C-alpha cells in the first residue's frame, strides 16, 4: 500500500465541496438525463482529463470502497493510472482491476464488458455534456431547447445524414433519449455500449469537469438511441472477428495495426485477462 499524503482532507476535496456535488448528483438522479450545473473544483489534474468524473468519485468514495479506473477499457493507460494513484494517495482505499470486485468504477469512454450490478456505481468522464452542441452553438439556446423539448434540429441533422450518406454517421457520443424526456450525450462510448445504458441495473453518473455539468441515468431507466423507424440504430460490426489474445467473439474489439498485420484485441483488458484463463467465463454473472 502506498503511503497516504498528509495535510489534505480524505479524498482531497473539502467536505463542503463534496456535499455540494452529492446534492447535485441527487438532483441529477431525480431528473434522468438533465444536466445539473455544479461548481467544478480545482484539482491537481488539468480540466479535460477526467476531472468531472474524478470529482464525482471523490465525493462518493468511502473508506470501504474498492475502486477501478479504466481508460477506453484499459486499466493500465496513463490517464487511468494517474487517477488511481491520486485517489489512492488521498484516501488509502484499495484499487482493483477486477470489474466484479469494484464498488465504484470510473471510466473514460467505455462500459466494462462484464454486467454490473445494483451494488456498483459507474462514473463516466465526459468531455462535452451537451448533445445539442452539434447543431446549436449557444448555451442559452440549447437550454431553452431542452426545457421545451425542442429537438427538431438534431433530428434534422440525422435526416440530413441519411440524405447524404444513407445512414447516420455518428460513431461515438451517439445521442440518446432518456426516460422519454431529455436527449443526453452518453459521453464518447462506442455505439456498442449504447444499448447497455437501457434498463441497466447500475447507477450511471456522468461528470464534465471543464463544462461543469453532472447528469445521471438511474438504474432501470429507459434509454433509447435516436433512430428512424426505417433507419435503425446499429452497433459496430465485429462479424467474423475475434480477440487475438483471448479469442472472444462477443466483446468490443480494438483494431491494432502492426506493420502489415491487422489484429483485433478486447478493449476491456481485465475481462480479456479473465477470458485467457477461462475461455468460457460469461459476461453476465447476474442471475436472471
Amino acid at each position, binding site marked *: 500500500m502506498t503511503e497516504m499524503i498528509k495535510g489534505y482532507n480524505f479524498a482531497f476535496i473539502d467536505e463542503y465541496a463534496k456535499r455540494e456535488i452529492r446534492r447535485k448528483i441527487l438532483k441529477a438522479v431525480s431528473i434522468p438525463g438533465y444536466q445539473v450545473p455544479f461548481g467544478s473544483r480545482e484539482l491537481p489534474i488539468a480540466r479535460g482529463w477526467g476531472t468531472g468524473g474524478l470529482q464525482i468519485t471523490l465525493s462518493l468514495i468511502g473508506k470501504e470502497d474498492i475502486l477501478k479506473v479504466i481508460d477506453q477499457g484499459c486499466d493500465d493507460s496513463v490517464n487511468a493510472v494517474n487517477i488511481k494513484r491520486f485517489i489512492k494517495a488521498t484516501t488509502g482505499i484499495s484499487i482493483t482491476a477486477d470489474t466484479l470486485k469494484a464498488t465504484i468504477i470510473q471510466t473514460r469512454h467505455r462500459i466494462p464488458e462484464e454486467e454490473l450490478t445494483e451494488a456498483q456505481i459507474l462514473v463516466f468522464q465526459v468531455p462535452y455534456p451537451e448533445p445539442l452542441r452539434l447543431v446549436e452553438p449557444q448555451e442559452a439556446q440549447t437550454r*431553452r431547447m431542452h*426545457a*421545451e*423539448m*425542442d429537438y*427538431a*434540429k438534431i*433530428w*434534422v441533422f440525422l*435526416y*440530413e445524414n*441519411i*440524405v*447524404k450518406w444513407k445512414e447516420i454517421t455518428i460513431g461515438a457520443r451517439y445521442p440518446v433519449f432518456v426516460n422519454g424526456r431529455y436527449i443526453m450525450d452518453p459521453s464518447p462510448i462506442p455505439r456498442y455500449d449504447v444499448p447497455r445504458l437501457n434498463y441497466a441495473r447500475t447507477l450511471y453518473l456522468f461528470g464534465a469537469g471543464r463544462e461543469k455539468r453532472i447528469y445521471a441515468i438511474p438504474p432501470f431507466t429507459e434509454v433509447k438511441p435516436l433512430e*428512424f*423507424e*426505417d*433507419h435503425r440504430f446499429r452497433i459496430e460490426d465485429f462479424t467474423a472477428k475475434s480477440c487475438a489474445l483471448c479469442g472472444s467473439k462477443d466483446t468490443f474489439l480494438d483494431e491494432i495495426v502492426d506493420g502489415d498485420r491487422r489484429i483485433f484485441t478486447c478493449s476491456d483488458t481485465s475481462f480479456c485477462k479473465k477470458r485467457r484463463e477461462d475461455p468460457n467465463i460469461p459476461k453476465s454473472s447476474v442471475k436472471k
Partner: protein
Amino acid sequence: MRDWILKVENLTKIYGDGCPNCLKSETNKCPFCRATIAVNSVSLALYSGEILGIMGESGSGKSTLVRSLYFDISPTLGEAYLNGEERNIFNFNSQEKRKLRNFNMGMVYQSPYRGLNFEITAGGNVAEKLLMANWRSYSNIRRRLIDLFEKTELPLNRMDDFPATLSGGMQQRIQIAKALANNPEILFLDEPTSGLDLSVQARLLDLIKKIQQELKISIILVSHDLGVIRLLADRVLVMREGRIIESGLTDQILEDPQHPYTQLLVNSML
C-alpha cells in the same frame, strides 16, 4: 356569417418605455415619451377560409402585427384568441406557443433568410417541421416532402440542395412548403412576393390562390403592393401609423376609398 378562426383585440406593440399617453398618439411616435408605437390598439377577426389583406406603407406596423401573431415579437398589450380556445394565446407558455406555431400556423417571410435555415438543405428545412411533429419514418418524411414540393411546384431534383443555390422564387416556395407541412389552419404571408420579378411573382400568386382554394386555409396577407392585394384578398385592412384606418371588402376599398390616406394610396398606384 362564417366562423371566425382568429380574433385579435387591442393589440399594441410599443418599443421604448411607453407612457399613458402613447395610445392616444396620432402618429407612431409618442410626443410625450418618444416611444415608438409600432402597432396601436389593433382589433381584427380572421374568418375561416378567407384571405385577409393588410396594406399600408412601410413602417405602418403591418409586419409587426403578423409577427406578433406568430409569436416572433411579444406584444406590449392586447389579446388574441383562436376559435375553441378560451385563453389569450399571448399568455401561453413558450412550449404551448411553439406548438401553435408548428401545428396551427404557418409563416412566409419577405426575406427567405428569416424563414429558412441556409445551413441545411431545402428538404431539411421542410422536414424540420415534420420532425417537430414527431414524424419518425424517413421514407414517410421523404414521401411527404415530394408531395409538398409537387404542391408548391418545386423541382424534386433540387430537394437535397442548399437554399443558397436556389433562385429567389424557389426559396419563397420552400418557405410555403415549410409553412404548409403540418396542414395549419392559418397562414401568415408577410410580403411573400416583394423583390421577385414579375413573372415569378405572378406564378407564386397563382400558387397561393390555388393552395388557398384547395386547402381552405385562412390567410393573413401583408403587402404594400395593391396589385397583390387586389388579386388575392377578400377583405382588406388599411394601416397607417400603427392603426387600422379603414377596412372593408377589397373591391370596395380599392374602388371607393373613404379615408383620405387610402385615397392617396389607391391613386398612387402605377
